[in-house]
């Protein structure tokens, strides 16, 4: 039976990985992920999990070593942030192409220049084309739950794809939150041992990472895309199983007070909890406000999105990253594109918020909603709250 504890979320994520009985962890420290790396190594050094911890010399080597380990059939976990994620970015599409279900915990942090160690999503956004499944957690409980779910989803024979679990750096990682920690028996029941599709061992010889000539490359890419698109079925299945066993419900897009909402905020990550309070305040003032919280970023939940925006007239999409010189924040431009063919679609506006760890308060969300209700911003996307 799970125990309710107060735990720093980064520590809790490492504890969740430990409950999954990982075989190998290959991690390079980077603020604000360091507590994840450190606690994983504590767990291994204390023998609480029978595993190896590789103190790799860089993030590129972290994911590379993780790939080597996963390829032998060992359940492998890694973690990073920001510059580290960018440094290993060469390896990200290879991990998904080679169908190795590594789980990566990402403590989302702003990408340099200027260098900034605080939270936003500019590290994960450039990685959305790399073929990984992406979860976004709102709070510590979700971080723990999603870490365990990630192994189950990724290792499913119908999926065989790597998964990243995104938690806001400092905003989540360094917060002590109340979390119901599942116990080992529950997790063992939920998550079976990893049985790899193929493994590097002389008893069953395989060549992995072969050369794909032009005649076959496109087919390989389509196969990968289909695998990622179809994985949403497995995500739903796993979430249903999770709800049945643990009583906590997960949906690709969680709705808050949208039943009769005319205008809705869209958030991803821990800002969703602040936005909830803003929605409550707006409702008190008679504004028919609602909130959509995206939990599953890849594969993109097209069907869920179309369903939850029915009846909503205006969407105020918040992004925590900028696609410079592009059509707006990544979440905004993907939602707009996803709804392009829907005949009755809401007006969509875009606010770039919380960049580089800038605090976003309840009043700010309320202000965003009021201005968005007018239906159009002066620019296609707005850097919210920027002076000048």
């Amino acid at each position, binding site marked *: 039976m799970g125990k309710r504890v107060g735990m720093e979320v980064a520590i809790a994520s490492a504890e969740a990985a430990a409950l999954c009985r990982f075989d190998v962890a290959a991690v390079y420290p980077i603020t604000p992920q360091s507590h994840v790396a450190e606690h994983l190594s504590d767990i291994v050094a204390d023998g609480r999990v029978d595993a190896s911890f590789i103190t790799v010399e860089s993030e590129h080597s972290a994911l590379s070593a993780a790939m080597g380990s996963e390829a032998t059939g060992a359940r492998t976990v890694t973690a990073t942030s920001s510059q580290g994620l960018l440094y290993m970015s060469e390896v990200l599409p290879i991990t998904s192409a080679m169908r190795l279900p590594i789980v990566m915990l990402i403590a989302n942090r702003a990408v340099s220049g200027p260098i900034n160690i605080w939270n936003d999503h500019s590290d994960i956004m450039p990685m959305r084309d790399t073929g990984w499944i992406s979860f976004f957690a709102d709070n510590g409980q979700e971080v723990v739950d999603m870490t365990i779910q990630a192994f189950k989803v990724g290792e499913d024979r119908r999926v*065989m794809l790597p998964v990243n679990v995104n938690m806001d750096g400092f905003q989540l990682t360094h917060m002590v939150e109340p979390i119901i920690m599942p116990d080992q028996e529950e997790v063992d029941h939920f998550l079976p041992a990893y049985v790899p599709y*193929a493994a590097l061992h002389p008893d069953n010889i395989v060549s*992995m990472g072969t050369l794909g000539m032009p005649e*076959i490359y496109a*087919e*390989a890419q389509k*196969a990968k895309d289909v*695998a990622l698109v179809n994985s949403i079925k497995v995500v739903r299945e796993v979430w249903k199983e999770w709800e049945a066993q643990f009583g906590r419900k997960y949906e690709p897009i969680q709705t808050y007070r949208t039943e009769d909402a005319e205008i809705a905020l869209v958030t991803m990550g821990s800002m969703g909890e602040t936005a909830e309070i803003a929605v409550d305040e707006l409702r008190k003032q008679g504004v028919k406000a609602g909130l959509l919280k995206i939990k599953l970023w890849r594969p993109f939940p097209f069907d869920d999105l179309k369903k939850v925006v029915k009846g909503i007239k205006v969407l105020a999409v918040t992004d925590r990253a900028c696609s410079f010189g592009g059509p707006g924040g990544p979440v905004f431009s993907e939602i707009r594109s996803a709804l392009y063919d829907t005949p009755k679609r809401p007006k969509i506006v875009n606010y770039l918020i919380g960049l580089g760890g800038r605090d976003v308060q309840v009043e700010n969300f309320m202000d965003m909603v009021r201005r968005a209700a007018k239906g159009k911003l002066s620019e296609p996307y707005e850097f919210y709250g920027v002076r000048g």
Partner: protein
Amino acid sequence: MTEKKWPETWQEVNPGCMVFRPGSAKEYHTGSWRAKRPIWDNAKCIKCGVCYIYCPEGCVTENADGFFEANLDYCKGCGICAHECWPVAIKMVNEEE
């Protein structure tokens, strides 16, 4: 694994482009590359096996009598065996002959 026709469909491509047929490169015959081929004079051959050791293709094999010959499906005609043969028992001759 059953034989698939090349080029494969996206449904047929092995996950991760993994190859489960070790040594399947031998389906590709590199013998068509060569301009010269090695000919052994068994009268001179001392059966030392140096030609076998030095072949980058691994296509020189010992026959039942202990003499050596190149598998012409793979021999690229590099000439290493002829060059290294101590008793000079191997000659490189043009392909046309």
